[in-house]
C-alpha cells in the first residue's frame, strides 16, 4: 500500500483540521500545546498549509515561462551566469579579506583596530545566526513556493 493509499492517522487528521481552521477553541488550544513540543506535528501542519496555499494560487504557465525554462537549461546561459555569480562572490570575499588585512597592518591605534574587529565579528555572528534561524524555519514556510 503506497503512502497515498493508506488511511490518514489521527494526528494527520488533526493537523489537517487545524490547518483548515476547523478545530474548536479547546481542541485548538490542546493541539497548539502539542505543537510546542512535537516537531513532527509542526511539519505536518506546515505541509497542509503549503498545499492549501499552492492550490489557491495555482496559475497556468505563460508563453514566456517556457522560454525562461529553456534558457535556464541552456549550457551557455548556465555557464555564464554561474561564472558571473562565482566571480562576484569570490571577488566580494577577497575584497573583505583585503580590507581586514589592510586594517590589521595599518598604523591605526590598537583600540580602533579592536573596535573594527568587534564590528566585523559582530556582523559575522548576527548574520550567521540570522541565517541559521532562517534555514531552520525554511521548510515550515508555506509561501516560498508561490510564483505569482
Amino acid at each position, binding site marked *: 500500500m503506497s503512502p497515498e493509499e493508506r488511511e490518514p492517522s489521527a494526528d494527520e487528521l488533526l493537523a489537517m483540521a487545524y490547518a483548515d*481552521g476547523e478545530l474548536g477553541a479547546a481542541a485548538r488550544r490542546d493541539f497548539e500545546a502539542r505543537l510546542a513540543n512535537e516537531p513532527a506535528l509542526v511539519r505536518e501542519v506546515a505541509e497542509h*498549509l503549503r498545499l492549501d*496555499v499552492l492550490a*489557491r*494560487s495555482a496559475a497556468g504557465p505563460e508563453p*514566456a515561462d517556457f522560454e*525562461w525554462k529553456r534558457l535556464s537549461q541552456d549550457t551557455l546561459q548556465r555557464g555564464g551566469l554561474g561564472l558571473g*555569480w562565482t566571480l*562576484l562572490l569570490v571577488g566580494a570575499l577577497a575584497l573583505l579579506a583585503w580590507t581586514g588585512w589592510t586594517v590589521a597592518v595599518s598604523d591605526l591605534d590598537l583600540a580602533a583596530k579592536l573596535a573594527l574587529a568587534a564590528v566585523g565579528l559582530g556582523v559575522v555572528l548576527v548574520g550567521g545566526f540570522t541565517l541559521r534561524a532562517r534555514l531552520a524555519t525554511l521548510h515550515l514556510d508555506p*509561501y*516560498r513556493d*508561490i*510564483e*505569482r
Partner: protein
Amino acid sequence: MIVVTTDLIPGREIVETLGLVRGNTVRSRHALRVVAAVFKQFFGGEVHEYTKLLAETREQALDRMLAEARAQGADAVVGVRFASSEISTAAAEFMAYGTAVKLAPKR
C-alpha cells in the same frame, strides 16, 4: 469561509457584523535574488524575483486575515481590500483587511 470584495453576498443575509479583521506581513527575498533583480531592472521586462515576493506577501497577509476571521467565528469576510507600502527597498508589505460577518440563508 467566503471571502469577497463586495459588501453583500447574493443569496445570503448578513445577520451579524463581527468587525474589522486584518492581516499583514513584510517579506523580502535573499540578497542574491535582490542582486539578480537589479540586473533584470536594468534591461526591462518582468522582474520575477519581485513578482514572487509580492505574491508570497499577498498570500500570507490574506491567510493572517482569514485566521483572525476564523478565530472570531466568522462565516465570511466582506469588503476585502489589499493595501501595500514600502518598508525598505528590498522588502514588500501587504495588508489585507475586511469585515468579518456571520451569514444566514436569505429569507
